[in-house]
Structures are given as structure tokens and as C-alpha cells.
């Protein structure tokens, strides 16, 4: 790790209340000379942020209560909660939610586990360590467009690389699998892309966190005769539980927001069977120009994500206390 020492100081110092301040001392006083000075510095950023995130959030809620008309000549009609009721009764919406759930279950545990596995292996010195870390991270910085099209190509039915690997190399299957032409195999392909692309991110975050686990704890465990597995379970895992939670929550949020990979690999097909919430919402909004329905679905998804994230913090947060 190159800069974890700095990082840890950086994150520790984040809550401003944590640092002792000597108020009212000369020129370094935190009270500005004129009330508008801090606002002058903050204004461009705050205005931009409020205009493009704050205001649209409120507006999104408003649009979701309307049968929204995209034509300026036609008036939008207030329909209350109808868009929400419609989403909850829409089988295609539920199919998309189930697909996101399947994607989550297939990709998130594997991504986090593999990321941690390789982080533990790469933590200690080994030849080519930096190069390996770079290689694992390249998919993360590559555009979703490039990697999605690449995986679409690899999962081609006729002479695709994955089918060659499965049938000719491993002899696992007698005939070519039409990966992207049926629901479950397509979701497997999309999940494999998710694992492949996000693994490096988990690895890098875990690597930074593993460096912070006290060496003396490992040495104490070694004196007690602990083997590598015991050390992992009793020293490493408790030592990085905060990071583990952070990674898990972000990966779960990411899984519910799976979007460009599905759009580009299957476009929700065949017959809408691989649609996920965001592809379905995007189509309703921008193909069928039903902005109200699209906004309502995005709000349902946002609330759902919020509840799930909160539940994870609650659940693992309590477990964390129990581990102490």
C-alpha cells in the first residue's frame, strides 16, 4: 500500500468536532472577516450541486405524482399515487426486481469473497505484487461500455470464447450454450461480468484495510498456536469488519443499480426476461416517454435501497458489538 498512512489520518480527521480548536485566535480565526467570504468560496459548488441534484430530487417526486406530458402544449395531469400503484401491480416491474435480486445473490458474495481472498494473498510481500494489483484493477477503471460489449462477445453462442472454454477445453458441456438468449444463463453471464469488474475495487479497499490490522495481534495469535485459518477468522475478520460492512453495503447498492451491462448485453431480452429495475425504468421514461411512471419506479427503488442499506448497517452493526 502506498499511502495508507496518510489515508488513515485523513479519514480519522474527517469529523470536524474531533479536532481540538483554539477559538478566536488572531488571523486563523474560523469566523470570517465578512459574513459573505465563506459563501463566496462555497457558492459555485453549492449552486451547481443544489441545481443538479437537490432540485431534481424534489422535482422527481413531483413528476412521479403526475401523468407527465413531455409536450409543452399538453398539460400534465395530477394522478396522486397512481404511478406507484401501477408499478407495484406491474408483473414486468417485479420480474426486473427478481432479476436484480438474482444478480445480487450471484455476484455480490462472490465479488466480496474473492476480493478479500486475493487481498489476503497479496497483502504479504511477493514478486510482482504491484503489477498484480494493477492488473486486478484495470477492469474497474474501464468503461462499462467496453467491458459489457467485450463480455457480450465472449459469451457469443457460436465459437464464443466461453463456449470454447466450456465445451472444448473443459468438456463440461456437449453443445454450445446460448448464454445471452435465455433468462438464467444471461443473468449468469451478467453476474460474471459484475464479479470480474468489481473484484479489483474490493481487493484494493481490503488491502488498505488489512494493513491497519495490528501486527502484534498476529504475533500473539501465533504464540497461542493459531494456524492461518484461525488467524484469519479471529484476527483478520474482526480487524476489518468496518471495511467489510462498507464494501458489502456499496456492492449491494451497486447490484440494485446494475444497468449498462444489462442494457448492452441483453437489452432486457429475450422478451423482457432479463430486465432489471433501471433498464425497465429507463425504457419507460425515455423510450415510452412516460416520465411519471419512470420517476415513480426510481423512487421505489431508491427507498428500497435505503431500507436495505440501513438494515445492513443495523444488522452488522449489532453483530459487530457482539464480537467485541
Amino acid at each position, binding site marked *: 500500500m*502506498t*499511502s*495508507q*498512512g*496518510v*489515508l488513515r*489520518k*485523513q*479519514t480519522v480527521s474527517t469529523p470536524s468536532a474531533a479536532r481540538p480548536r*483554539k477559538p478566536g485566535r488572531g*488571523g*486563523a480565526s474560523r469566523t*470570517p*472577516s465578512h459574513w459573505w467570504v*465563506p*459563501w463566496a*468560496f462555497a457558492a*459555485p*459548488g*453549492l449552486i*451547481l*450541486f*443544489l*441545481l443538479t*441534484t*437537490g432540485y*431534481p430530487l424534489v*422535482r*422527481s417526486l413531483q*413528476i412521479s405524482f403526475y401523468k407527465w406530458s413531455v409536450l409543452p402544449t399538453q398539460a400534465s395531469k395530477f394522478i396522486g399515487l397512481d404511478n406507484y400503484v401501477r408499478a407495484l401491480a406491474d408483473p414486468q416491474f417485479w420480474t426486473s426486481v427478481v432479476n436484480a435480486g438474482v444478480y445480487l445473490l450471484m455476484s455480490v458474495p462472490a465479488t466480496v469473497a*474473492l476480493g478479500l481472498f486475493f487481498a489476503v494473498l*497479496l497483502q504479504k*510481500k511477493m514478486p510482482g505484487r504491484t503489477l*498484480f494489483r*494493477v*492488473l*486486478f484493477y484495470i*477492469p474497474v*477503471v*474501464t*468503461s462499462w461500455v*467496453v467491458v459489457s*460489449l*467485450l463480455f*457480450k*462477445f*465472449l459469451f457469443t453462442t457460436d465459437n*464464443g*470464447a466461453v463456449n*470454447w472454454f466450456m465445451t472444448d477445453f473443459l468438456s463440461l458441456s456437449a453443445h454450445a450454450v446460448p448464454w445471452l438468449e435465455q433468462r438464467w444463463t444471461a443473468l449468469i453471464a451478467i453476474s460474471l461480468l459484475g464479479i*470480474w469488474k468489481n473484484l*479489483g475495487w474490493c481487493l484494493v479497499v481490503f488491502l*488498505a*484495510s488489512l494493513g491497519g490490522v495490528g501486527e502484534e495481534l498476529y504475533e500473539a495469535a501465533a504464540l497461542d498456536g493459531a494456524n492461518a485459518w484461525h488467524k484469519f477468522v479471529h484476527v483478520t475478520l474482526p480487524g476489518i469488519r*468496518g471495511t467489510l460492512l*462498507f464494501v458489502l453495503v456499496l456492492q449491494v447498492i451497486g447490484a440494485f443499480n446494475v444497468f449498462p451491462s444489462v442494457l448492452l448485453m441483453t437489452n432486457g431480452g429475450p422478451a423482457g426476461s432479463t430486465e432489471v429495475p433501471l433498464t425497465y425504468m429507463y425504457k419507460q421514461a*425515455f423510450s415510452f416517454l412516460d416520465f411519471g411512471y419512470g*420517476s415513480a419506479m*426510481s423512487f421505489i427503488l*431508491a427507498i428500497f435501497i435505503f431500507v436495505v442499506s440501513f438494515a445492513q448497517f443495523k444488522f452488522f452493526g449489532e453483530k459487530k458489538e457482539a464480537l467485541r
Partner: protein
Amino acid sequence: MTAISLKPKGSREADNPSRNERPKRPLNIWLLVRVAIVLCGAVMMVAPFMIMVSTSLEPNTATLPNPPHFLPQTLTSANYEEAWTENNFAGFFGNSAYVSVLTTVASVVISSMTAFAFARFDFPLKNFMFSLLLAGLMIPGIVVIVPQFVLAKSLNMLDSLEGLVFFYTAGQIAFTTFLLRAFFERVPRELDEAMTVDGAGILRKFLVLYIPLARPALATAAVFSFLGAWDEYVWALTVISDATKRTLPLGIAAFQGEHSTAWGLVFAASTLAVIPVIAVYVAGQKHLIAGITTGAVK
């Protein structure tokens, strides 16, 4: 806290010195096993890219080679030439570079000012505003894509590269401000006070003291903004319909949609899109990792 702690230089040496000094274990077989497993993982990471580059360097064929080529069998630059000239990827590359560079500059300048205000001063509504920014980090961008589109339309920013810059910059503000504020807060107050004694105003302090000291964090913000803008697809897809205004991701996806079997061309364009990313990543690796792990490591 001293000025030294602001610089990541030297932290490499601080990377667990006890581990380096520890005597070598006799079990070198475990080292071999570890390297072998990591190597297998790295091959899985790289193999798709090898197939991508090989396909881009070979002539287009009606059927895919079986087994797939991890290294090109016959070399040709035809796909690159055709993509660059006939399919206007030169233009898309230019659009992407223009948008990404402007986004990087704008988001670093604007967020360093905002972060400075939050780090240096107490002012009314400060905590409320900062909470709003943090909440903005949690909201998936796609939730507000419909009203953002309506907003872009009313601001006349559809089909405009500057419009992309505007929204990409805005999208980075919350994260980069969060990142930079933490850094500015660690600037030693003694230095600030010393400048006051010398009669420096707040703008001078910002430019001469805070900005230079925050260079590592500014680099982190720049790498994130650049990669974010360079790789972005969904927003560009939503607001750009003029084919000459496409960015690289948009151009690649649209081309694949129109010519579903011209994989050599698609991957030539993809390779061209990935090269700057890898260059920025390798050059800014340290800063990128600093950004990723901010907030994660406790």
C-alpha cells in the same frame, strides 16, 4: 499533526517495516502457491482484454475463430484505420478528451473552493449544507435522471458537449468536496496564522498555502473526475442525439448496435478508449487508491 503528514511520500517506507525485517520463513512452497493462485486470478482478469486486442488487430471474419485468439495470428491495422477515419472515432475521441479535460479542471477548481469554505470557516447553515452534500453521495444518479433531463432541456443543454461538462462536473462535486475538505482541515493552523502576520488576505492564503499543500488530494480529485467523465455512458446516451457529438462510450455502443458483427472495429475503438484510461490509472495510481479507500478504512 505536522506538515509532513500531508505528503504521501515516504509512507511506502512506513508500510509495515516489521514485516520486511522479519526473517524469511522456511516454507517457500507457500510463497509459490500464493504466487500461482494470484497469477491464475490475474490471468482471468487480463485474458478478456487479450482477446479484445487480438480481435482488433486481426482482419474481420464472418465466423469467430475457434479456439479464440489470445494473441493475434495475422496482424493488420485496418480496423484501427477504418475506425479512426471512416467511422469518425477520431471525432468521438476528441469529444471525449474535450469533455473529460474540461470536467476535470472545472470540478477541481470548484470543489477546492467549496471544500476550503467548509474546512476553513464556521458559517450559518454549514453543517446542514455539508449533510446535503453527503446525502448527495448516497443518491444513485439514476434516480434523478428524468428531472435532470428536463432541467438540461430547459437550460438548452441537450446535444451539447458543454452541457455534458456541466452535469459531469456537478456530479463530481459532492465526492471531490468531501475528499478535499478532509485534506484542507489538516493544514496546520500555525502556517495560516503566520501568513496573517505577514498581512496576507484569505484569497492569498487559499492560493499560496492551502492549494499547494493539498496537491495530492487535488490529484486524486482530478483522476476521479477524468475517469468518471471519460467512462460515462448513461447520461451521454440520454442527452446526446447528434451523431457528431458522441463521446467514445456512446460511439462504441452505437457502432456495435448498428454493425453487430464488426467486432474487429468495435474492439479497435474500445482499445483506443482504454489506452488513456490505463495511462491515467498507471500515472495516478497512488492518488486513485487514496480516493477509493477514503472513508472505507477505519
